[in-house]
C-alpha cells in the first residue's frame, strides 16, 4: 500500500434498516438463498445448515442476532459466506447485498452512541459515508454467537 491513508474494502449489505459491512478479505463468497436443513433445539440465530459444494455451512440469521424483527416471508435472505478462523465457514443471512466500498481508515469511528441493543456488541465501529452510516460487523463475535447465547442464558 503506497497510499498514505490506509484504505480498507468492505463488503456491504443491509439487514432491516442497518447498513453493515465486513472486510472483503473475510468474505469467501456471496450466494443466493439456499434450501436449509433446520437444526432443532439450536439457538434461534442458527437458521440451518446449507450444502456449499460439499461443505456443510451453518447459516446464522443476522436479523435475529441483532434483535431485529423477522423479514417478510416472501423476502429470501442472501448468504454472505465468511471464513472462520478455525477453517470453518459460516454464512450470514442478510437482506440485500450491497457494493464493495472503499473506506479510509481515518474515517473510522467508535460505535455511535445512538446504536443500542445487541447490535452494539456486534459492531466494531462505523464509517461515516455520504448520507449514511456504515457499521462494521465484528465477525469473530458474530461467529461466537453460540457462546454469547450460553452466557446470556446462564447470567
Amino acid at each position: 500500500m503506497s497510499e498514505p491513508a490506509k484504505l480498507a474494502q468492505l463488503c456491504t449489505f443491509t439487514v432491516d434498516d442497518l447498513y453493515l459491512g465486513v472486510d472483503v478479505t473475510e468474505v469467501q463468497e456471496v450466494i443466493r438463498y439456499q434450501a436449509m436443513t433446520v437444526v432443532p433445539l439450536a439457538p434461534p440465530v442458527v437458521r440451518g445448515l446449507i450444502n456449499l459444494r460439499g461443505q456443510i455451512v451453518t447459516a446464522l440469521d443476522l436479523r435475529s442476532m441483532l434483535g431485529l424483527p423477522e423479514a417478510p416471508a416472501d423476502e429470501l435472505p442472501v448468504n454472505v459466506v465468511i471464513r472462520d478462523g478455525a477453517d470453518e465457514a459460516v454464512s450470514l443471512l442478510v437482506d440485500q447485498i450491497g457494493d464493495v466500498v472503499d473506506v479510509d481508515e481515518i474515517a473510522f469511528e467508535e460505535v455511535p452512541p445512538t446504536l443500542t441493543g445487541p447490535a452494539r456488541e456486534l459492531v466494531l465501529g462505523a464509517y461515516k459515508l455520504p448520507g449514511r452510516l456504515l457499521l462494521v460487523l465484528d465477525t469473530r463475535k458474530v461467529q461466537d454467537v453460540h457462546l454469547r447465547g450460553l452466557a446470556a442464558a446462564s447470567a
Partner: protein
Amino acid sequence: MSDAPVFADGLDEIAQEFLVESYENLDELDRALVALEKEPNSRPLLASIFRTIHTIKGTSGFLAFNRLERVTHVGENVLSRLRDGHLELTPDIATVLLQMVDVVRALLGTIEQTGAEGDVDTAAVEEALARVLDPKPAAAEPEAPAAEPAATAAPAPVEDAPVLDDTDDVLHDGADEADGPAAPADVEEETPVEQVLEKAPAPVVAVPAPAAEHVEAPVHPEEGEQRRSIADSSIRVDVGLLDQLMRMVGELVLTRNQVVQYTADLQNVELQRASQRLNLIASELQEGVMKTRMQPIEGVWSRLPRVVRDLGAQCGKQVKLVMEGRETELDRTLLEAVKDPLTHLVRNAVDHGLEAPADRLAAGKPAEGTLTLKAYHESGQVVVEVSDDGRGMDPVRIGNKAVDNGLVSRDQLARMAEREVLDLIFRPGFSTAEQVTNVSGRGVGMDVVRTNIEKIGGSVDIQSVLGEGSTVRVRIPLTLAIIPALVVRQGGEMYCIPQVSLLELVRIEGDAEGAGPQIEHVAGAPVHRLRGNLLPLVFLSEQLELPREGREALNIVVLQSEGTQFGLVVEDVVDTQEIVVRPLSRQIKHVEGFAGATITGDGRVALILDIAGLSQRAKAVGGSLSAMSIEEQISSEDWDANGLLVCRVGQDRRVALPMGDIARLEEFSDGDIEHAGDTQVVQYRGELMKLVHVGSLLGLAGQMHSDRYSVVVHRHDGEQPLGFVVEEILDVIEQELQLSDVGTRGGLQGSAVLQGFVTDIVDIPALVAAARGGMYV
C-alpha cells in the same frame, strides 16, 4: 512355547521394517554428516548421528547381521569420541564416516536382496575407522593429515555436559569396547583407505572406482532399482492428509451416487457409459484410499503372546495361544481403539476363564488351556473373537454377584434369560475388587470394554457354556469414514441413524375404524409390546421439540445402545444410505441430540442423531423399564392393580386374573412338584405353596401335558402363597371390564371380551377361599 512360531513368522517383517527405517536414517545421516562438516562442533548433530548409528547397530545385532553390527560399532566409537570432544571432525574423518555409511548401505542392499549380509567387504572401513580412533600408526602413512587434527583435537572444547544424558552410559561402554576391534586393526593393517578398498575383493563391487568419494558407486549393484525397492515402495504420509483424502473420496462416492442416479433417467447412452465408468473408478478409488489406512490386526495382536505368557506364568496356568486371521485388516484409528479392550479380554480369559492345570486335568481336559484369537470380515464388519476352553461362566454366580452388587434385584434376576444374566458383566459396577479373586467371575472392567467398543460403532457380545469355555465376540466397523445409516423423516427434515444401533423396524397400523394405533403406558411411560417385552418409546418429535406427526400409523425404529433397547418413533422411514460423518460446526456443537451432519444422496444436509444420547433419554423416560418383560411389569410397583393377567388354560380357554394380589410369575418343572395328601405343592422360598389348577377349576378335562408349569403366585398380606397353575401366560392388559354373567360359576366373576376373545374372569378371593377350604382343588 507358543511365541516361537509367531516370532519366526514375524522375522521377515522385522527385517523389512529395519531396512526401510535404516535407509531413511542413512539418507538423513548423509545430510547430517555434510552439515556437520560445516559445523563440526554441533552437539545436537553429533548426538543425532550417534543415535542413528547406535540404532542400526542395536537392531543388526538383534537380527544377527554381525558384520553390519561390527562396522556400526566401530563407527559408533568414533562418533562417541567426536561427541565427547575427544576428537574433532576433520574432512578426513567425515570422509571415513561417509564411507562407513556407504558400506552400511551396501550391506543393507545385500540383506534386502539375499536376506544375508553376503560378502560385502567391511574390513577396510573398519580399519579406517579404527585408525581414526588410534591415529598413531596411520600418522606414518600419506593419510597422516587426517590424523593430525584428530590428535590436536583432544584439548578442544570439552564440555562435560553431554546432550543426551541417557546415552552417556552407552557412550562410555562404546568407548571401552573400542579397544577390542581397534587394537588388532592397527597392528595388522596400515594401508590407507583407498588402497584397502581397491584390494577388497567385494564381488558385487564394480572394481574400477576406488576413490573414497565414489565408494557409493561401486557398492551399488547393477540392479540398483531393485536395491532401493523397499525404501522406495513405502513412504510416510501424514495421517491428516489421508483423512482428508478419505473424506473427499467419501464425498466423491456420494456425488457419484447422485450422478449415476440422475443419468439412469436419461436416454443419452454416452453419458450413461461415462457415468458407469465414473462409478467403477470412484469405487476403486474409494477402496484404494481406504486401503491406505488399513493395517492388519496383527499389529495389535503381536504383543499378546507376551501378555499371555507372562500372565499364564503369573497365574500358574499353561496357555496355548492360537491366532487365526492375523492378516485381517482394519482402519488404523480403529486398530488403535481396540487395542486396550482386546488386551483386556485376553487378560480376562487367562486370568478368569482358564483353569489351573490340575483343575483342567480333573475336568478331563488337557492341562494346557487354549486361548483362541480369531479375526475375520463379516458383512462389512470385522469380527474379533476371543475364546477360551476354560470353565465358562456360571450364570448363577454372576447373578448372585450382580445381586450382591445391587445391580439387579433377586426378582429381576429370577426372570432373566441366561444370556441376559451373562450380559450383566458388562454393567458398570459389576466389577469389584473381590471379583478379581472370585473364581467364577469375569468382567473386571468389562463395562469399559463395551463402552470403548461402542464408542467406535462396534458391539460386544458373549457366549459361554459352563465347563466348556467362553467366547467374547467383538464387532467393529471396517472404517469410520463412511457408515451405513438409516434415513428417517421427521417434520420435513431427514435424519440419519447409524445402522450399528439399529435392531429392527416396526410399523403399527391403526385399526379399521381409523383410530390411531394404541400406545400403552406403563408407569406413565409410553411403551410398545414387542414379542412379550416392553420397549420404552421415545418420540423423535418430542425429543427435537417438533410438532407431533399424525398418528395413523406408528413407525418404530428399534435401537440398541449402551445396553438399552428402545423404540424411536419417527414420522417416516425413508431409506438406507452410506454417509460420510462430518462434525458439527461450533455454533451447534453443544446442541443435544446430534452426533454430526452429513450430505445425503440428494445433496441436502441431514443431521445424524446421537443414539447414545437418545438412549439416555429413553432410560430417563422408561426408568428401569427398559425392555421389561411382562413378568417384570407385575413386580413393578407402579403397575396398576386393576390390570388383568391374561392366561391360557386347557387347549384354548382364556382366563384373566385380576392383578390385585398377584406377586410373581414362576415356572416349575415336574420334578419340583410334591404331594401333600391329595394336594400338589412346591417348595417356594422356604415355604410350601399349594398349587391350584385353574383348568380343573373350569372343569376342563385333562391336565397340562407339558412338564413345565406356569404358576401365578398369589400372596395376600401375611398369608401363605398360593400358586395358580395355567397353561401359558399371554399378556397383561388394562381394560374396563364389561362383565357378562354367561357361564358364571364358582370361582369366576363372569366373562368378558378381552382383546377380541371371550375370557373368563377369575374371582380370586373366591378361589383363594376355596383353595384354603380344599374346594376346587
